[in-house]
């Protein structure tokens, strides 16, 4: 199962952090710092895999991918395949790119909840449930449409279930 997904920039600022097992905020920060420390020390052109047992405890692996100013980090256990997770990152980023047209770091920052929505469609409860970029897009677009609809309705009158009539 996937234990955590993190997105951080090359300065170590967290842009997104989602832990699929509950951890207190302080612990999360500690882990994020630990991950960043390891990522910084990695040379270019080395593998994308890191043995994460010293940070996350037994049976944990870490795969990261570096895009422009962002590191995308997935932490998972032995039930996943490293190369496949690397491609999962690719799917995630491709989807973000489709969603935001030439995604950049600021898109992730400003559309925080949308990035979460995308991630929630892909990974649910630590399990990868959707790996097709177009399917994810479809789902996300539908959500956005519905939300936008309900939002505009909710803004005008205070009708109880305006979105249902859609």
């Amino acid at each position, binding site marked *: 199962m996937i234990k955590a997904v993190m997105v951080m920039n090359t300065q170590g600022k*967290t842009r997104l952090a989602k832990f699929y097992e509950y951890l207190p905020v302080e612990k999360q920060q500690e882990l994020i710092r630990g991950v960043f420390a390891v990522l910084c020390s990695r040379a270019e052109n080395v593998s994308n895999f890191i*043995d994460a047992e010293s940070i996350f405890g037994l049976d944990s692996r870490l795969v990261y991918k570096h895009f422009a100013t962002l590191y995308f980090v997935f932490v998972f256990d032995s039930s996943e395949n490293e190369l496949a997770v690397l491609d999962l990152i690719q799917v995630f980023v491709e989807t973000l790119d489709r969603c935001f*047209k030439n995604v950049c770091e600021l898109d992730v920052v400003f*559309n925080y909840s949308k990035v979460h929505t995308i991630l929630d469609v892909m990974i649910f409860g630590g399990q990868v449930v*959707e790996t097709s970029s177009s399917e994810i897009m479809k789902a996300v677009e539908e959500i956005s449409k519905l939300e936008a609809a309900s939002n505009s309705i909710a803004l005008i009158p205070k009708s109880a279930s305006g979105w249902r009539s859609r």
Partner: protein
Amino acid sequence: MGSQGGFYQSKEFLDLVKSIGEARSKAEEDRIVLGEIDTLKRRISEPDIPKRKMKEYIIRLVYVEMLGHDASFGYIHAVKMTHDDSLLVKRTGYLAVTLFLNEDHDLIILIVNTIQKDLKSDNYLVVCAALNAVCKLINEETIPAVLPQVVELLAHPKEAVRKKAIMGFHRFYQKSPSSVSHLVSNFRKRLCDNDPGVMGATLCPLFDLITIDVNSYKDLVISFVSILKQVAERRLPKAYDYHQMPAPFIQIKLLKILALLGSGDKQASENMYTVVGDIFRKCDSSSNIGNAVLYECICCVSSIYPNPKLLESAADAISRFLKSDSHNLRYMGIDALGRLIKISPEIAEQHQLAVIDCLEDPDDTLKRKTFELLYKMTKPTNVEVIVDRMIDYMISINDNHYKTEIASRCVELAEQFAPSNQWFIQTMNKVFEHAGDLVNIKVAHNLMRLIAEGFGEDDDTADSQLRSSAVDSYLHILSEPKLPSVFLQVICWVLGEYGTADGKYSASFITGKLCDVAEAYSNDDTVKAYAVTALMKIYAFEITAGRKVDMLPECQSLMEEFLASHSTDLQQRAYELQAVIGLDAHAVESIMPSDASCEDIEVDKALSFLNDYIQDSIEKGAQPYIPESERSGMLNISKFRNQDHHEASSHGLRFEAYELPKQTVQSRIPPASLASTELVPVPEPMYVSESYPTTTVSSASSDAGSTELKLRLDGVQKKWGRQTHSPATSTSSTTSQKTVNGITQVDGSNTSNSRTRETYESRKQQVEITPEKQKLAASLFGGSSKTEKKPATGHKISKSSSYMVEKSHVPKSSMEIASEKKAPIQQPPDLLDFGEPTVQSNAPSVDPFKELEGLLEPTTEVASAKNHSSTAAATKSPDIMGLYTETPAGIHNKDDGDILSGLSNPPGTHMLGGTTRTQVAQSSKGPNLKDSLQKDALVRQMGVTPSSPNPILFKDLLG
């Protein structure tokens, strides 16, 4: 750029993000965030906030918390948002609570109801949001509240809902398998879902279920194989293609499941061969995801029942991985190789070069993976190279976690495959020096034991050479600034035992060094204790040798410090040292025999050395001792005493009339009580005063003549518990009997007493038998267990001390005799004259070739290794016999010695016990095992002569 998502963002939030982004330092960032928290705290509690504003505040809160600041003040608002009717607000609320809360948070109780309602909603997005929360926030107790709805949703028309319901259900199963066990069949049903996405998602819980219990899912093999076949044949919608691969993630999951199901199951595996072979062919090895599937195929092939054709394809794929330029692929290749060599070890050979490349690669991840592979393929032939490499790497890294792991692996490999003891010691020194505090203390004890036992084949040269080289190296190492505590303990111990043994260093030099250690590491009590005991040993050896002991001034001041130490252990050791120095040479020698650390100290639990003393005392009229369990009526006493206490406590507080404790008293006191005159008012005096009963007893016992009276007394006295054992009642036979170790009793007046004594006597006999039985068992089974163990472990260090405990029953003197006998046999130069023809004739015949060629051929190596074990077994049997026949003599010797030492200088024995015994307990070994292992080591040494800078690295590693 930020508005493309269609989400409303205020200027404020943009500014916040921007200013955080521009913050130069963590402090500046913190200041900004704290300011933001203040603003939010104020704003969020204002009345009548528009919903979209509220939504933004919550998003900002999430953001703040992601940056590591406490946002708990806003949790309740997030919870409130989940109650909202607006989808957008509701979803934001759910997102926030899943990020903020955990399943045991107090606020969950406010959400469960909302979740229940939302799971029934018509809008599938609301249901999805609620399922999201279910996954994260429902704990074992709240599962029943939502379980029916979630199960219902498994058949929801929307596939997204079905998918999430499956995962939520899976989550329940993970949290509390028992609560959903009756519904597990739903996972199987969903496997046949029309939607490939749902089917793929179902594979996750099935994988977990199959991991736990393979057998109940064997029937699904056919289904999985046919699904995999369909996927590979591109029967799924195009949307699932990824980089021209048909649904690779589903393929990977399926292959993982098949690997589990086919493991060790020939029939199941046969069903899989075709489809796995197909995938091998179809996989596009130019894309990343293609390789991911290939790798999963290799894992599957190495897990299921082996098929030669598939193994061949797997080996091909591995070689492609390893030849790749991509670090990722090489990493996967090394990992796959590690899996495959378990089945076909020979494939490692063709990849030697690639493996070495990976080992030298600057990429740490790859390096570690390669070490893992090397660890798996370590053999006696390549252990030196591998462990050397590991140590070099261990020295070069700072990561404590991995350092510990690699250190323990080094130790494990060294213990398992060490070619010679010398090499082992050197290796251990390196490990200790660089990772000392991270290794297990047992490893240190093993090292000490090895140094103490030495090679044994040549007492005067090899052994002392080893020791003096150890002493030399340790004296050298001591000059380094900061050494790990464990290593210092070893150093102190070795310096104490062997520092002055070869005469190279003077006692004052060694003691000076030891004092330096104790001073330099003055906050480590264990090291100091080791140092003091080492000092004591040095001084003891000096006294024994007849030299005058001059304590260095620094040593004296150290002792003074320790004598006043807060650590009782240190204090005791210091006093012991003082006491030893004051004794004469003869006494010191028996306390601290030189080079005797390997000899067993037999603990005479029966204290038989006191027999004479007791006999004397008894003849002088002392009462024999009765062990507590044998004292008649002991049980009753304790029972009674309990009752007594109970009553006493209750009566201690109230002063009004009390009811007579009729039943108890009646049961204790025989009905025909004659002595009732004195004893009937029992309860009353008891409460009046505590001392009163004593006088009663003494008066009763003073006229003790008739047994009947005593019997009655018996019953009564028990009531007063403790006093019955006071000296005042010494003549009262029931209570004051003292028997010491089976000495015949003086007093035998009471019938019940004599009965107890009989049983005691018989039990005593049993007790006497057991040590002999144990000895027999130890010499027979201890020996046999060793022969069993030996070939498996191959090195003496790897013995656990589990049977050492038994072994310690073997008397020390018999050990000495045995080892003395062995020693002359083992003079190495003329090997051909040996009693054991097989080993000796074999070893030298192999040896010269090897030395000439500087090469090792694996086959001869194996052969000679076999010889070791067989001869080791052969040499063992006579030893066992010898040990057994010598045992009785040993016992006598031992006893005498114990009486002497036990009576003359008890502190002395204690001192020995203080530190030496702890090591001895572990180092105690029968001579047979030791010698055979020494032989083993010798033969290895001759056969395997390692040329340290080995030019043929690959040969060594992989040959």
